[in-house]
């Protein structure tokens, strides 16, 4: 009988490298043959490759875990689903079913939430650009509006006059909480008095009811202490407002920003070490609230957590199309999925798993997409054994921001499926076809090719 074949490899032993990677590297490939009990093979056979796969079980579990961390510590909590993080109907519907309201930042997202059946009062409308027509609809339907600019105050007053309604509004505040980068371009600054000016301006107008304060500090925030500072500053502002004006601050919206178990580039510790548990965030936020609120006052705590909830429920299956040896000795693979559908590859190193056992020592390699563009690097620091053509890679977590920020570029965007809690697989977004892309194009008659 023939001897077992392994692709030939040779590695130089380097003293420094030995410690860093060893031969049982922490970044070495793990084998994953299933997602929630469904075989990778079966998924690809039915729906093609690449393929986004979401796990309903993981999504619901994560949502409950994050939600419980807060509801067990504070009596008045609302989770509002950040649509921009993932607004696929099926994903948003699962989260609404779990009790989340909708947090939207454009009229498109607003309309998508309404179309799914979310009533206006259960929508929080954020963002620096809210066209006045969209404010009319939002005010009429009773949505909560977090104001971003002085112009928006004026627009809302105009809408209030037109409709004869006194809209409930909040202001978005930005502040120094000791983290970088500081998202100072959204809302009104706390430290320089701009937020207070906005409050005065709203009071002076007399047409809007200021009922909330909002702040979203950034994303993938690894410092739970920042939230403590955020909450204390917001509570302090709330009481200054209530003491000075005839407003009652009914909600404090601390935004999103909790990290998922992803590996941010530039952070060398594995996520298990680098990413604090959600309980730590919940503890800091609720303790800061309970220690600074006046007795008997429990304004609603609103959370707009996005990536922490959905990221880990999403996987991307992609297939090795070719491999090559680069001039510097590293191996490069050409995959069928590129950065146009994996936007988060610019900031994170995904967890890379393979669908079968592969013989041979792991080596540093680069994963390229199919885009014929130099920037199309899915991971420049993977560590994998020599993979035969056709091997499937399973990249995760990819549930946050990819299926909203993806763009159609030279290839069709792939299908998205959901593995239900019962293990049944359902298509939740079809793969694109030529018709999807050309439907909106118009070719002037005179330019039609003859012949």
């Amino acid at each position, binding site marked *: 009988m*023939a*001897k*077992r*074949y*392994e*692709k*030939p*490899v*040779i*590695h*130089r*032993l380097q003293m420094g490298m030995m410690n860093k990677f060893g031969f049982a590297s922490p970044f070495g490939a793990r084998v994953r043959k299933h997602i929630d009990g469904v075989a990778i093979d079966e998924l690809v056979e039915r729906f093609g490759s690449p393929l986004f796969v979401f796990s309903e079980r993981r999504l619901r579990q994560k949502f409950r875990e994050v939600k419980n961390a807060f509801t067990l510590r504070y009596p008045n909590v609302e989770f509002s689903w950040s649509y921009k993080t993932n607004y696929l109907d099926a994903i948003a519907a699962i989260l609404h079913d779990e009790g989340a309201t909708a947090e939207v930042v454009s009229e498109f997202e607003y309309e998508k939430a309404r179309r799914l059946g979310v009533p206006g009062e259960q929508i929080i409308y954020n963002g620096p650009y809210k066209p006045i027509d969209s404010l009319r609809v939002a005010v009429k339907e009773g949505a909560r509006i977090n104001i971003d600019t002085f112009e928006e105050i004026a627009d809302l007053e105009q809408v209030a006059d037109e409709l004869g309604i006194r809209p409930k509004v909040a202001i978005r505040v930005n502040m120094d909480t000791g983290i970088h980068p500081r998202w100072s371009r959204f809302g009104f600054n706390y430290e320089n008095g701009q937020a207070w000016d906005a409050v005065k301006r709203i009071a002076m107008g007399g047409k809007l009811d200021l009922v909330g304060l909002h702040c979203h500090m950034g994303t993938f925030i690894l410092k739970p202490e920042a939230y403590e500072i955020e909450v204390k500053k917001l509570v302090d502002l709330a009481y200054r407002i209530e003491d000075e004006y005839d407003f009652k601050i009914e909600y404090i919206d601390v935004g999103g920003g909790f990290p998922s178990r992803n590996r941010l580039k530039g952070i060398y510790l594995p996520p298990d070490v680098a990413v604090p548990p959600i309980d730590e965030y919940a503890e800091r936020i609720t303790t800061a609230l309970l220690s600074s609120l006046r007795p008997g006052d429990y304004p609603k705590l609103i959370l707009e957590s996005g990536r922490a909830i959905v990221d880990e429920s999403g996987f991307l299956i992609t297939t090795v199309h070719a*491999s090559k*040896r680069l*001039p*510097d*000795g590293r*191996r490069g693979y050409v995959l069928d999925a590129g950065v146009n559908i994996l936007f988060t590859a610019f900031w994170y190193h995904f967890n890379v798993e393979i669908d079968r056992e592969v*013989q*041979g*020592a792991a080596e540093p390699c680069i994963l390229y997409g199919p885009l014929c563009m130099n920037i199309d690097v899915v991971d420049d620091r993977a560590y994998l054994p*020599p993979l*035969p053509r056709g091997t499937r890679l399973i990249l995760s977590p990819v549930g946050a921001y990819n299926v909203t920020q993806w763009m159609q570029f030279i290839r069709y965007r792939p299908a998205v499926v959901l593995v239900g809690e019962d293990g049944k697989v359902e298509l939740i977004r079809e793969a694109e076809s030529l018709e999807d892309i050309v439907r909106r194009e118009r070719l002037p008659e005179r330019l039609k090719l003859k012949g």
Partner: protein
Amino acid sequence: MNRLARLAISDEGFIFDPETGNSYTTNSTGVFILNLLKSGADEDEIVKALVEEYGVDEEEARRDLYDFLEQLRVYRLID
């Protein structure tokens, strides 16, 4: 190929280059190919030997041999 001649290659795949002091590891297929190279076999002969020894198909054997030779070039073990 003369640089290969000076390499000490163990059956387990540990390789030592006494000239540069570098060491390397390779797998059993690598040892098999290196020994053939040392004995002066050419590419076609190595491909044929891989097919016979491992039952791998010729296309894959040739592809993998090229890849292995590229690795040896990167380490300057062959020209």
